[in-house]
């Protein structure tokens, strides 16, 4: 089975700084990691490869620094890595991001049987990219998958959706987005990262390689614009009550009444 896994590098710490002029996140100086769900997608791909044979190719669109994420994925066991990078790719919304990723996947030979994405990222967290790649490639999609079984030309997958546990059968090729609970993430074998840096190649494709035009990608190819970034209004601290337990409980009950979570007590006027 030929599998492509899309991975995105995200900032590791919640100490996010922003470039207020360009309305983008400053990534310099912030440590980056592979989006946690993309790690799970990668593990799932490696497990499927073990059972069914084939290859695992990982791709990311991002600045040149994202090569580190690809190296890490190679160290874990991926066969091939492609970095999609071009100054013009910057500032992309999900419409433009999915366009570049879909175009790259079309260029990969042979065309994959399975494309895996995370269900969402820990930074902008839209969850759009998977379904939008599937749409551009004309493939079926199943989102939020936490179990995958292979059955000949089909996959049988399980996911939670709006209060239902769905088991569905999907034809290949297909795109799945995965969520927690699918695969335990293993630790890197000792020395594997160093080996991945010295031995394996990372392919690099830019706008011309992908036969894309400037107006299709990055900021220019985006339909949404971030007008303003702000931090949520700080939660001012409210009332802090000290006293014996019954007084504390009294305060809590009155707050529950004020929130209509508890009916007002009848006796009280």
């Amino acid at each position, binding site marked *: 089975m030929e599998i492509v896994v899309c991975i995105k590098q995200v900032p590791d710490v*919640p100490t996010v700084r922003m470039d207020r002029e360009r309305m983008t996140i400053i990534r310099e100086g912030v440590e980056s990691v592979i989006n946690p769900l993309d790690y799970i997608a990668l593990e799932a791909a490696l497990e499927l490869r073990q059972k069914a044979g084939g290859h695992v190719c990982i791709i990311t669109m991002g600045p040149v620094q994202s090569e580190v994420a690809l190296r890490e994925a190679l160290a874990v066991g991926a066969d091939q890595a492609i970095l999609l990078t071009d100054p013009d790719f910057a500032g992309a919304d999900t419409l433009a991001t999915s366009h570049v990723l879909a175009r790259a996947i079309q260029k990969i030979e042979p065309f994959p049987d399975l494309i895996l994405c995370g269900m969402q990222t820990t930074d902008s967290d839209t969850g759009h990219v*998977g379904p939008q790649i599937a*749409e551009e490639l004309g493939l079926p999609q199943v989102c939020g998958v936490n179990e995958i079984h292979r059955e000949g030309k089909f996959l049988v997958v399980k996911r939670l959706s709006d209060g239902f546990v769905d088991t569905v059968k999907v034809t290949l090729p297909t795109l799945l987005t995965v969520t927690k609970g699918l695969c335990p993430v293993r630790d890197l074998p000792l020395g594997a990262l160093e080996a991945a840096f010295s031995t394996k190649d990372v392919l690099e494709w830019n706008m011309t390689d992908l036969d894309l035009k400037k107006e299709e990608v990055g900021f220019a190819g985006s339909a949404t614009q971030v007008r303003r970034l702000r931090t949520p209004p700080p939660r001012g601290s*409210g009332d802090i009550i000290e006293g014996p337990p019954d007084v504390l409980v009294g305060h809590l009950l009155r707050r529950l009444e004020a929130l209509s979570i508890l009916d007002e007590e009848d006796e009280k006027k």
Partner: protein
Amino acid sequence: MKKNRLSDSIWVFGDYRNYFQNRVTLQLIAKGKELAKELDKQLIAVVLGDQVHQYAMEYVAHGADVVVAGEDPGLMEYQVDTYTAVLARWVEAFKPQILLAGATSFGREFFPRLAKRLHTGLSADCVALDVEKDTGLLVQTTPSFGGELLAEVVTPDHKPQMATVHPGIFRELPHDPDAFGCIIYPEIGPLPEIRVKRMRTRPQQTHDIRLEDAAVVVAGGIGLGSKELFGMLSELADLLGGDVGATRPAVYAGWAEEERLLGQTGKNVRPKLLISVGTSGALQYTTGIQGAETIIAINRDPNAPFFKIADLGLVGDAVTVLPLLLDALRKRV
């Protein structure tokens, strides 16, 4: 007198498989109507299924000016491929300005695909929607970095302006049995073949109802000191119609399942009320809960950082406060 126009209006996708989805649809109809007034447009609900008349009536009673409905056995199942085909067709025919859906599992799987087919922008899981004064554009406020930042997103040059919206943010209008509206059934057109075949569907057990959807969350930290005391939170949650969450140390202690972990590496919740007991208020935890409307903290340390973000802070020992609270509540509910 407003013209009854289908085009150029504000559309809300009617998502109705269960109670929770239905509620967020009604909330969006209310909010959409407010936006529609501001923009002098109409609020239209759109609903698909094999028998949808009762839902269409419900949407009218809750404020929809018009309901655009599609009835076909092929639409009985919530399928992204078929729903995208029909809605894309209707959007191209009627050209709505704005198209909204609840950020349900289905909404978040369906709308990205639809936006891509329509080649327009989409924002995710919005917590506020406003009209920009000078441009009339929809300002879509969406949380990112686990709620650390709010981004105001606009879609200036593409139509419709699409957003999925977090459940529970807006208030639905009361049911008005006298409300008058029209329900139309446009042609559905051919449906694509089903590529994702449902083999089995079962309702989730109550214990795996998504914590994220609970209106009340009772969360506990390592300060509770024992599994027994932590266990009292379940009863507290039951009495308040809510669910239980936990900090990482409490999960590590084996008092709660991993699925109940709140925070940076766990779940984000934005309930109406969060009661947090024996938690210090580490940033990695509070990022997951700061979207709660009201936060009540119980901690025996008056200097616990958590008190800084609590709306009501009770300085006390959980060992004595919790049993007393449960006693009082058992008598009341």
